[in-house]
């Protein structure tokens, strides 16, 4: 998965587990950037009576670097608080929920938004905004879309925010990929699969019909760009921002185990989850270092660069698909560091490699989702993003419909190495390999406006 349960420790702490991060120039308002951070992954819609929610004891943050040092120049903090209306019922709702303040909605969650500038000065933008309820079912919530729409808030400072349940729009054939690297459309070419299958298979979207909890914010571009520029050219270094999200918990927690004494949470916040580019901690970082990766800031990522320069998956592809990745095997054998992957994941792509494009943040190696904010949204997004010539797609930021799994596999397979070494000829397979899924395999349709992610799957129809 992109980052669902991507490391041993965070897989046991789903409330703080970031699953996907998106950043793109907003198609519904191109003078803004939309950043979406998903948490609490893999939610079964039918999960009553205790439906999913954000952690009241977790600090959620979205960070933006505008000067390339991999440290936040702008941070948005989100804190949550759960309120119970009725202590004498076990029910989430005791009647139909028709509004965000419906008295029949028993367990509600609210959030605050705080903006922190590069100097650490913080400003509370709003102290109490309502989350929409979880999508219990159409009996309990007959007009869910309206409730979710009502939960979109426009702040006085210009940002638009939303926090609540949404349908997970990430698509991945998880069952196949982690079954020794099988891609079902190529399962009959797989080292072991070729003994089992004499035909190509059809991919399965393992994350379909599951929900997540989304924190979404739409920010005017001048607030995120270096120097507050309202207009920049695509080649201007100030056009590029780096984005990542983190979740933190207090360093000490003491459980009292009784009702006489409240639990204690004290000490500084300690980061337990981090997400920039999709799949980095998932498939690039070795298991022994995944928890460490989650605890560190992007400015420390130089220590992980060796795993990007020689990714384990690049070594596996020629073995798992015999005869299809011979050129990649030679590249691996030569031991040449993968400067293409370092650029894509750790520094951004410099000017001159792709016509009319750059999203570099300089020499500092850091896993951030880099977005050139001067590139407007495309009317017909290509799922393969930059690889398909669509400059507004991954790895220039990340849109919801981008097929980041296939893009990443093709890049690791060698298609992007030719950008940095003109003598290298990628294998034919590297240009066609894919997981076999698209946004069409997500059953909840995306919205055409903020917060873009589709209506969460309801418990009644998705038991």
């Amino acid at each position, binding site marked *: 998965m992109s980052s669902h349960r991507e490391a041993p420790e965070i897989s046991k702490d789903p409330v703080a587990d970031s699953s996907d991060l998106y950043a793109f120039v907003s198609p519904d308002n191109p003078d803004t950037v939309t950043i979406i951070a998903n948490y609490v992954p893999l939610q079964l819609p039918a999960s009553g009576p205790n439906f999913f929610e954000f952690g009241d004891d977790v*600090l959620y943050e979205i960070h933006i670097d505008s000067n390339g040092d991999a440290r936040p120049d702008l941070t948005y903090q989100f*804190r*949550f608080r*759960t309120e119970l209306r009725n202590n004498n019922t076990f029910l989430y709702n005791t009647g139909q929920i028709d509004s965000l303040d419906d008295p029949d909605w028993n367990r509600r969650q609210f959030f605050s938004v705080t903006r922190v500038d590069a100097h650490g000065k913080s400003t509370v933008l709003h102290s109490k905004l309502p989350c929409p309820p979880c999508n219990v079912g159409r009996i309990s919530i007959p007009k869910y879309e309206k409730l979710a729409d009502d939960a979109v808030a426009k702040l006085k400072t210009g940002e638009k925010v939303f926090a609540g349940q949404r349908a997970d729009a990430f698509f991945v054939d998880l069952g196949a990929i982690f079954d020794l690297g099988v891609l079902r459309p190529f399962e009959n070419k797989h080292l072991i699969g070729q003994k089992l299958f004499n035909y190509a298979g059809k991919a399965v979207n393992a994350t379909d019909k599951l929900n997540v909890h989304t924190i979404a914010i739409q920010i005017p571009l001048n607030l995120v760009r270096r120097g507050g520029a309202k207009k920049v050219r695509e080649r201007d270094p100030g056009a590029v921002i780096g984005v990542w999200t983190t979740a933190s918990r207090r*360093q000490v927690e003491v459980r009292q185990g009784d009702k006489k004494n*409240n639990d*204690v949470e*004290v000490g*500084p916040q300690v980061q337990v989850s981090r997400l920039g580019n999709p799949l980095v901690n998932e498939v690039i970082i070795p298991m022994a270092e995944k928890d460490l990766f989650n*605890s560190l800031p992007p400015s420390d990522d130089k220590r992980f660069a060796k795993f990007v320069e020689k990714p384990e998956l690049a070594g596996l592809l020629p073995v798992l698909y015999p005869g299809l990745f011979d050129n990649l095997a030679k590249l691996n054998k030569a031991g040449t560091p993968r400067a293409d992957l370092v650029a894509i994941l750790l520094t951004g792509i410099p000017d001159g490699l792709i016509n009319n494009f750059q999203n570099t943040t300089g020499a500092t190696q850091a896993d951030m989702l880099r977005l050139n904010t001067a590139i407007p949204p495309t009317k017909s997004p290509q799922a393969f993003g930059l690889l398909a010539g669509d400059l507004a797609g991954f790895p220039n930021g990340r849109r919801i419909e981008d097929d980041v799994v296939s893009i990443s596999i093709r890049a690791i397979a060698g298609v992007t190495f030719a950008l940095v070494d003109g003598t290298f000829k990628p294998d034919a397979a590297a240009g066609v390999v894919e997981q076999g899924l698209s946004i069409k395999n997500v059953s909840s349709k995306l919205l055409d406006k903020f917060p873009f992610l589709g209506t969460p799957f309801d418990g009644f129809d998705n038991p």
Partner: protein
Amino acid sequence: MGVDRNAQHPRNRKSLDGKDERPDMSRVRYGSRAVNRLSRRRVLAIAATAGVGASVAGVAGLSLAGETSGSADSAPLVISLRDAQKGTFDVFSGESKSTLTDKKLVAQLLKAVHR
């Protein structure tokens, strides 16, 4: 100063009052990697909360800035022993962590818990 849990449900955090936690976070995140690497599950050596915390302060005359007056005395305080021989320990209070050395206090604490 400390987060008073006594007056509220543990899940009804004070966080929504907009209190800035950034200065602490910045220091911990970017200034001290060792703190980041501490596992939440490993950190507790000795936990002194509410009443116990007050008696600890009384025993050694422990005086941390802003923690000795008024209602702050009842705020939770957690002590984590780092090195018994050197007498070094961490004190967690509110949103801060302080590392202190007091051999006498550590000896008294260890005696109190029969170690």
